[in-house]
């Protein structure tokens, strides 16, 4: 543990530096591969939507020793049209999923299952979703997604800089694509709980990005006045300075989510907890990656195009200071950039 802290110190002073901005092409390439894979999986396999989106009924019987065959036979005897999906859940449950049924058909399935497994009808956990309801849920989920992206973009543009908002949103979109892609690839069920998970990830991913951007802004505030490092170099240092923090916040965020996933998938078998935490777990991991390897390089690239920043890069490189965008800021230059040396701080104490 203290190794990580020690590393934090060296990263902070720039003694050790992980090249992130300079190697942006590599990270972009890695992400591009993943995004393409995701798009491929999405277009070929598509998402495995739960009954909440399609409409349908789900019946869960809790009975030790309940078998899939018995459940299938019961459903067949109820005379339900279409194909029913029957699977075991956990150690003592069997779940039957059918297409959209009317009230009479639903009751018939319940009765047949209750008779087959000799359990009371009331003990069968049932979920019935009308077909139009699924459309409604999907529509709302999409509204939520776009509403969130727009609000956050506006907010970040106000709280930080417009270009930071663009970079942050690029990272979020990247996260959503990859997470959705993983769902398509593996064929996990997508339920409303999964959608909440997706939306929450967006918040989380931004949380990490906000922490990094805050430091970048601090490091680059007086950058044109000092001419000590280019925007990219200052950004790289900021990412390095916050990397330990990002890792820590992500681990701390992943621990509870992992617990939910463990309990939800392990003990309950399926349902809200598993769906929610699985989406969160995957999304958090992807979000941590993007807040370090995608958002800052995109920001740096956007800012480096500005004339002022180009001029700065020229000045810095012209001075014979470590040349090139790809080289990290040297350790000593950090002292001048450190907050202690910012003009404003001199008035303190």
């Amino acid at each position, binding site marked *: 543990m*203290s190794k990580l*802290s*020690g590393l934090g*110190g060296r990263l*902070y*002073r720039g003694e050790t530096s992980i090249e992130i901005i300079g190697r942006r092409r590599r990270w972009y390439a890695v992400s591009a591969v993943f995004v393409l894979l995701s798009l491929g999986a999405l277009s070929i396999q598509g998402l495995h939507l739960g009954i909440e989106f399609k409409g349908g009924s789900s019946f*869960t019987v*809790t009975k030790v020793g309940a078998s899939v065959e018995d459940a299938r036979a019961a459903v067949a005897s109820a005379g339900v049209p279409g194909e029913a999906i029957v699977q075991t859940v956990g150690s003592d449950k069997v779940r039957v999923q059918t297409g959209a049924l009317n*009230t009479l058909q639903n009751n018939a399935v*319940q009765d047949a299952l209750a008779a087959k497994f000799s359990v009371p009808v009331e003990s*069968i*956990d*049932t*979920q019935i*979703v*009308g077909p139009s309801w699924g459309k*409604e849920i999907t529509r*709302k989920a999409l509204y*939520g997604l776009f509403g*969130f992206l727009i*609000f*956050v973009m506006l*907010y970040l543009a106000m*709280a*930080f800089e417009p270009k930071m908002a663009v970079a942050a949103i690029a990272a979020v979109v990247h996260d959503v694509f990859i997470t959705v892609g993983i769902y398509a690839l593996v064929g996990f069920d997508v339920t*409303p*709980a999964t*959608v*909440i998970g997706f*939306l*929450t990830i*967006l*918040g*989380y991913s931004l*949380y990490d990005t906000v*922490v990094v951007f*805050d430091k970048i802004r*601090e490091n680059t505030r007086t950058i044109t006045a000092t001419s000590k490092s280019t925007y990219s170099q200052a950004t790289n240092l900021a990412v390095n300075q916050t990397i330990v*923090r990002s890792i*820590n*916040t992500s681990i*701390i*965020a*992943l*621990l*509870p*989510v992992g*617990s*939910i996933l*463990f*309990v939800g998938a392990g003990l*309950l078998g399926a*349902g*809200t*907890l598993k769906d929610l935490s699985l989406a969160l777990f995957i999304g958090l991991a992807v979000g941590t990656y993007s807040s370090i390897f995608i958002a800052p390089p995109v920001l740096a690239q956007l800012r480096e195009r500005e004339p002022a920043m180009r001029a700065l890069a020229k000045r810095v490189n012209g001075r014979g200071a470590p040349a090139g965008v790809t080289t990290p800021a040297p350790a000593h230059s950090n002292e001048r950039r*450190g*907050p*202690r040396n910012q003009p404003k701080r001199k008035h*303190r*104490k």
Partner: protein
Amino acid sequence: MSTTTKPVKTTARPARSLAILALVLITLTGLAFIQSATAVRLGLDLRGGTSVTLQPRIAPGENGKVTNEAIDQAVSIIRQRVNSLGVAESEVAAQGSGTNRQIVISVPGDTGRRVVELVGQTAELRFRQVLATAASTGAADPAATPATGVSAEVNAKFAALDCTKAENLQGSGSDAPGDTIVACDRAGGAKYILAPAEVLGRQISKASAGLDAQSGSAWYVSLTFNGEGTAAFGAITSRVTSLAPPLNQVAIVLDGLVVSAPRINEAIPSGSAQITGSFTQLEAQDLANVLKYGALPLAFDRGEVQQVSPTLGADQLNAGLLAGGLGLGLVLLYSLLYYRGLGLVTVGSLAIAGSLVYLLFLLLGKWIGFTLTLAGIAGAIVAIGVTADSFIIYFERIRDEVREGRSLRTAVETGWSRARRTILVADFVSIIAAVLLYFFAVGGVRGFAFTLGLTTLVDLVVVFAFTKPIVTILAKMNFFASGHPLSGLSAKSTGTLPVAGEA
């Protein structure tokens, strides 16, 4: 940082912040006791029960819009029916806004199928001729004069009907239009035998309450029928108006209960009628509303039905609590291992945040009917991470400041002035997410959003009123200030040369 005020000045009063926080905690605890809110209200997915989400739409062949008034009317009709099951803590509420509202019915326990069948039927307002009436005194009244032209069976039912009993006043939705029925007055003061329905609610085109211009104090209700209704109403009024009381009364029946039973003074062939009587303004408006919306030109799509058995509910609750305990334990363990002494601050802060959230759950259950669902528990567990993240941002900032060569006492303040902004921005993003989820989502998702938003707010309170003041106080202690190996601020863990205790 542009927003930074002189941070050293803000150091001043850690004790005051802590005192305020303690006061808030004590007040909330006191309130919980006074309001006898001793248990968090659990959602149906945690204790078993049935929830039905209905989506209103215009019934086939009807015109008009799904108005808020129509939905409110539907909610009150369905509530009457659900109450007839006699299950405590049943709830019927409208969710969402505008044209996109749903009605959510939640009934705890094992009632499953009955609820689904009960709420699925559409209530309709009907006009029926009164065949017999009696005051309902409470005890069954076997001596009641049997009404003529009515079967013995109905007469027996009429005699046995006790309208003072609550269960008879809750509407059944089982009043088939073609039957001769017995029914109670909505207020429970009278009972009736009623002939088959002759005019239906949907044949009313307009209803409104008005004030008699001459007397200036007598309220009346006027109603207008459509073409079909005009003919039907004309027929029934011209037939009964000359009959002896009570046969000359026409009862207005909604969902099996008599709303009003005006005497017909004359045949009304014109299709527009007035109901007069000693109405107050409120009574007149209520009656007009019933006439207007009681017809319920709404049909309902059964959006979602969820039946959770109490066994599964208990399983889910246990799983949620277990996941919470496990997650909390891991976060605490990690904080202690990584931040050592500072980790204790995390433990304390999470404990305070936990108590605040718990108290708010208790009180909000009382105040706004907040119920904790499985998704809500998940939201709270996820929030453990968000909350702990704020502490990490602050602690890492302190370490950064120490690396810059500041003394701990200074670092705690300068680090705070910067961490504060980061925490505010990050938490604000979380809150945006929670608010949007809450407004866009339906059902369980809302529970998640609500707890996520609530806990994020609590996080802000705890960071400002507890974590920061405590760290300020601790920074004055030698154990931390001298960079003890276990303090989490040693030279080794910050990766700096040892710093002096004082600047």
